[in-house]
């Protein structure tokens, strides 16, 4: 059984991530919630250069708030800082979008989604 930590992302999350690495934790997941916490790519970049072993993942990225190519570029950049240690966690954006008064895409009834499109 692997142990990981999940973090309401802060620019200085690297501090607790580095301690988790020392304690033998396998991975750190960074929340993506624009109204609630810091940007995960910024925090993961700091953690990438401050750690050597622990895996770093988005936990979880909100696809509807991100342009796919821009997000892919960010992951590729992170992977250069921490080769093979970056994980792409993705979800519906449940909390992050609700905190902005928005729905997650999967919640839209098909008819409503059609109207929105």
């Amino acid at each position, binding site marked *: *059984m*692997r*142990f*990981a*930590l*999940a*973090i*309401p992302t*802060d620019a200085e999350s690297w*501090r*607790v991530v580095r*301690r*988790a690495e020392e*304690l*033998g*934790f*396998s*991975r750190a*997941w960074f*929340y993506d*919630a624009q*109204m*609630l*916490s810091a940007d995960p790519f910024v925090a993961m970049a700091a953690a990438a250069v401050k750690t050597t072993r622990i895996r770093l993942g988005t*936990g*979880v990225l909100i696809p509807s708030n991100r342009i796919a190519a821009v997000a892919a570029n960010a992951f590729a950049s992170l992977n250069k800082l921490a080769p093979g240690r970056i*994980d792409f*966690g993705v*979800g519906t954006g*449940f*909390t992050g979008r*609700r*905190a*902005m*008064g928005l*729905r997650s895409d999967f*919640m839209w009834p098909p008819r409503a989604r059609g109207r929105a499109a």
Partner: protein
Amino acid sequence: MTAKLGAGWIATGGDVEGAITAMADMRERWQAAGRGAEPLDAVVMTGGAILEEGEPADSPRAVAQAGPRAAMLLHRAADAALAGLPMMAPMPPSMADIAARYVELARRFTPQGAHYLENHRGHLMFVKPEERPHVTAELIRRTTFTATERELTERVAALAEARYSEIALQIVPGQEHAIEDWGRIRRKFV
């Protein structure tokens, strides 16, 4: 979609029974997608607090560490009542009354028409003073991994038995020292 893509899976949950049920459902979908022989990398994302013997689940320390995750149920109940959004998971009957009382509180959140701003303030990070009376010991016990070290070790072992490969534990801002407590439990699974 996880099964279709053969991806890893992150489940969220606060109790072992729910996590085991979710795993059974995912295994069924994994099989249906023709991936029965392939390993499933399954993560359960949760949080809580490790209690001292005799420490109540709503001690100040437990509320600080586990309260924000317990309050998720309240926030979702308000989203459902005030914005018509689905609950995502059934409301435990024993929690229905306390959730209903929180919804009544949330109806007064300002600005009116944008309840979501105050509803989600501090979400997963801290317990708002006005929601503190609703974050009870029972809510924390039922929706988070908050128990003694011995009991939590048993719960993690049950997750491993259910073929979860990772447990991800939320660390609340200002409670980073909790990582030391969870580190003790981790060492039992090396």
